């Protein structure tokens, strides 16, 4: 009854859960690699679509795993993928949080913090490049990335407002394209 595809979901997501230093953003490149290249669960454009949906939806963006799980094995695939991505890291936090707080001035704690931070930064940027590659972003896509990055960095506009605005603008562009093409 326990299908090998469910096992596949666990084997992909549980290790990522334990190693997701830097949160959901840091594991995006590996989710893409596993789901598209290694297992062929999705195509690159499908991955990019699901990434957009997971970022636009409420809750943690790593719920993209639920969407991938559903693609692989329906409802139970979504459940298994979600448990696999959240349970292992939660168990680590459960046992580590107490030690962490009791050792505020420990040099080991400080070394772990300082050692993991640059890894997280590298992986977050790798995630951005991975999604861009998956969307086959052209000039319009790149311009969107640059404008949104700038607006988020230099203004107080919220990420959600911006995503909504971009969706409306793209809708407009799509409708205007036949007119422009004559």
């Amino acid at each position, binding site marked *: 009854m326990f299908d090998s595809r469910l096992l596949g979901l666990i084997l992909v997501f549980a290790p990522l859960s334990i190693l997701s230093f*830097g949160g959901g953003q840091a594991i995006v490149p590996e989710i893409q690699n596993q789901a598209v290249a290694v297992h062929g669960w999705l195509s690159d454009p499908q991955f990019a679509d699901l990434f957009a949906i997971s970022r636009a939806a409420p809750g*943690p963006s790593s719920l993209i795993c639920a969407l991938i799980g559903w693609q692989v094995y329906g409802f139970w695939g979504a459940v298994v993928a979600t448990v696999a991505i959240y349970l292992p890291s939660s168990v680590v*936090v*459960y046992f580590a949080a107490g030690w962490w707080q009791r050792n505020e001035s420990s040099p080991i704690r400080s070394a772990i913090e300082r050692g993991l931070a640059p890894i997280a930064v*590298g992986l977050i940027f790798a995630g951005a490049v991975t999604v*861009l590659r998956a969307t086959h972003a052209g000039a319009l896509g790149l311009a969107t990335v640059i404008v949104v990055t700038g607006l988020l960095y230099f203004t107080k506009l919220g990420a959600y407002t911006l995503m909504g605005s971009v969706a409306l603008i793209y809708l407009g562009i799509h409708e205007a394209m036949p007119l422009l093409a004559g």
Partner: protein
Amino acid sequence: MATDNSILPDADLPRPNVSLMALLGAFVRLGMATFGGGVQAWVHRDIVVKRRWLDEKEFLSGLTVAQVLPGANPVNIALYVGMRLRGGIGGAIAVLGMVIPAFCVILVLGYLYRTYGHFEIVHFVLAGMAAAAVGATLQMGIKVAGRLPRNVMAAVVAGGCFAVVGILRWPMVPVVVVAAPISIAWAFLLERKAGNVR
């Protein structure tokens, strides 16, 4: 500061009496409110400012734990707050409150995508939203990178991880398994050299 060996919550701090239902309710609402990141700000406003379940110092300490340890930040923050207030069962309840409603919403969106995803316009708009989300990722990356120490170690590790996973597309798991101990040891040696460690 807690000096006993008990796991959270600490016995020496007064705890507000928070029922599991109240905890669940608070995190269901937070789970639905945390669109597109920014979860810290929402949890802070609700749990610290409005409900006064935790004080500033506890919250900030929890935030560090949530960010440094593995796992999605929203889930880790929920787990931490729940554990502080009601121990392990509280942690589990808070995480379920954070994840389950959002899980249901994303399945509905996934269903809509499967039904309408073949329309070219859906794909076109989603590609735009993905580009916007990449912008959000980049902005976050720049912000976190700004907090890194300005030294060779941080530059080599961050640049190396980016190049190897992002450009060369090596699988992340072995990369992190190798890079993490090296990077932590390097950070430890740097600190000892700086005289911060006896």
